[in-house]
């Protein structure tokens, strides 16, 4: 290949040569594709803001959803989303961190490699299938409930948290491990009280990303928490949530409902993007700190 390049470079009319033009064309192509993606992002965000911002009022935030034709807000789906995502996080975080520790510290390398493989696959399993799974396991036995919805979301978050925890643990310098052992601490103490705190940056980033992923999920909630036009504190009863309200309202032909759907979409997007930005900034800061060390 180097011969080929040399031969091409020998061409005196280099600036007019096909190679040069091709390079230019590819550069233009690359910038155009980037421009297209940016345009799409801007289009989505501006549409969300233009259509959703008008509905974002005190009334919307502090009133329940109402039947078509009556003025309604988004209070119960907002709270329902917070409760279900919070519950899912409560379930998934301890299990995910423990799973991550297992992946990082398991003595049987083959076993941990296969679990890692499965966890990686689970991150991309269609979320609707997880909804079906939870329907079979929980809803068929105890009916539609917010708890079932939270379980479905937790299953989605679990592999993400486990894998990021594992990666964060692997980044912890061996010296810290050894310092712990040198003080006579048993392995579990070193892992849970020395390594995990040292790796907390990565773990927290993973948790934030997992939450931002499950906050907008609709498909797993469809068959599990059903939705509720009224408010209910009981997590073993159907509960409303923002994605379900969007799914329901966006398909209606009623302008008020469509506006509410845009508002709900705006709320979710703001929440998800903020979490993402926080996670990213956090990662950047830590990277800088690590570099300065």
């Amino acid at each position, binding site marked *: *290949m180097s011969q080929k390049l*040399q031969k091409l*470079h020998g061409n005196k009319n280099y600036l007019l040569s096909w*190679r040069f033009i091709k*390079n230019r064309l*590819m*550069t233009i192509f*690359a*910038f155009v*594709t*980037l421009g297209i*993606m*940016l345009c799409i*992002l801007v*289009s989505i965000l501006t*549409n969300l803001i233009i259509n959703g911002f008008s509905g974002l009022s005190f009334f919307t935030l502090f009133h329940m959803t109402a039947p078509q034709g009556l003025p309604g807000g988004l209070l119960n789906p907002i709270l329902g989303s917070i409760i279900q995502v919070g519950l899912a996080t409560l379930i998934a975080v*301890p299990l*995910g961190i*423990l*799973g991550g*520790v*297992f992946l990082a*510290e*398991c003595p049987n390398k083959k076993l941990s490699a*296969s679990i890692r493989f*499965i966890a*990686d696959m*689970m991150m*991309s*399993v*269609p979320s*609707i*299938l*997880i909804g*079906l799974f939870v329907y*079979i*396991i929980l809803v068929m036995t105890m009916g539609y409930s917010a708890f079932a919805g939270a379980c479905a979301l937790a299953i989605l978050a679990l592999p993400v948290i486990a894998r990021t925890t594992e990666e964060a643990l692997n980044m912890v310098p061996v010296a810290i491990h050894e310092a712990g052992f040198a003080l006579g601490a*048993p*392995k*579990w103490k070193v892992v*849970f009280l020395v390594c995990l705190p040292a790796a907390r940056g990565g773990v927290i980033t993973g948790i934030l990303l997992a939450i*931002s*992923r499950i906050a*907008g999920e609709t*498909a797993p909630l*469809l*068959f599990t928490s059903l939705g509720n036009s009224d408010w209910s504190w009981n997590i073993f009863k159907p509960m409303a949530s923002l*994605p379900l309200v*969007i*799914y329901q309202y966006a*398909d209606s032909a009623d302008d008020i409902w*469509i506006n509410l*759907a845009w508002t709900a*979409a705006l709320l*979710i*997007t703001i929440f*998800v*993007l903020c979490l*993402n930005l926080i996670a*990213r900034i956090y990662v950047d800061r830590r990277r800088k700190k690590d570099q300065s060390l």
Partner: protein
Amino acid sequence: MAIFQSKNRKNNQILPYLFTSLTWCSGALIILIFIGLIIELCWQGRQAFSVFGFEFITSTTWNPVKQQYSAGVSLIGTLLSSCIGVMLALPLSFGCAYCLSELMPRFIARYMTATIQLLAAIPSIILGMWGFFILVPLMSKYVQPFLKQVFGNVPYVEILFSGGTFGVGILTAGLILAIMITPFITAMMQESFANTPSMLKESAYSLGATKWEVMRHVTLPWVQKGVIGGIVLGWGRALGETMAVTFVIGNAHHAGWSLFTSSNTIASLIALEFSESTAGSLKMSSLMALGAVLMMISFIVLFCSQLLLKQVLKSR
């Protein structure tokens, strides 16, 4: 490792056991959920599989009146829409990755990467909504008539662009899927490109190669597997996407040659029909069987992608 042999220690007999067993449990949980997912779906779908047999996959009828169900149409819809998505996402994400990792100054590229990744964070239902309200009218007014005009008279190709231009359909679904998976594939490609040893690139530059030639002849051959793995992984994501697709695909049980026809994907069919089916009925069982089919496809696709990506990680 000591954590799993901590019974040798005399003090704190319970805590080490507790922690060890807890970590083992949560590790096992991941496997259990995954295997449970496959087994439960197949088990619940057994009735449909036994009634329709192999025809469940090959036939295209979905007739609730006559109690005939099959996966044919939605299977074609799933594969077709996701393939269109990947085909459209491929140049887009390659262009983005090339631009971000080779052409742009480092500090701008960092912010641009973050911006493109924001697109990946947008929930799929919001993309679906955007597609339904913004993209569908655009498609029906401009894109589809344009395509029809251009390809309408070309023999053999015209059949792809025939039918009414209503905006919804497989093409629109593919477009939405492309938008969804492009940031994802871009990230994979960028990561792969960054893994190319700079010595190789620099020696090519020193021979007078242009940026594109370095990309084409040095970087791409070096990262081939990683890029393919990323694309296949993106495909796996597109296969199971539900919400974004349900809004724009038109939800109809036809399989036609035209890219403008409304169709169905497995995921959108399940989302639509599920609440309508009685527990224990043949329809419910068919939907579960559809889920099992989808699980099988995505299992194979994800398995391949992980294998490809594993090799890249090893070669690092």
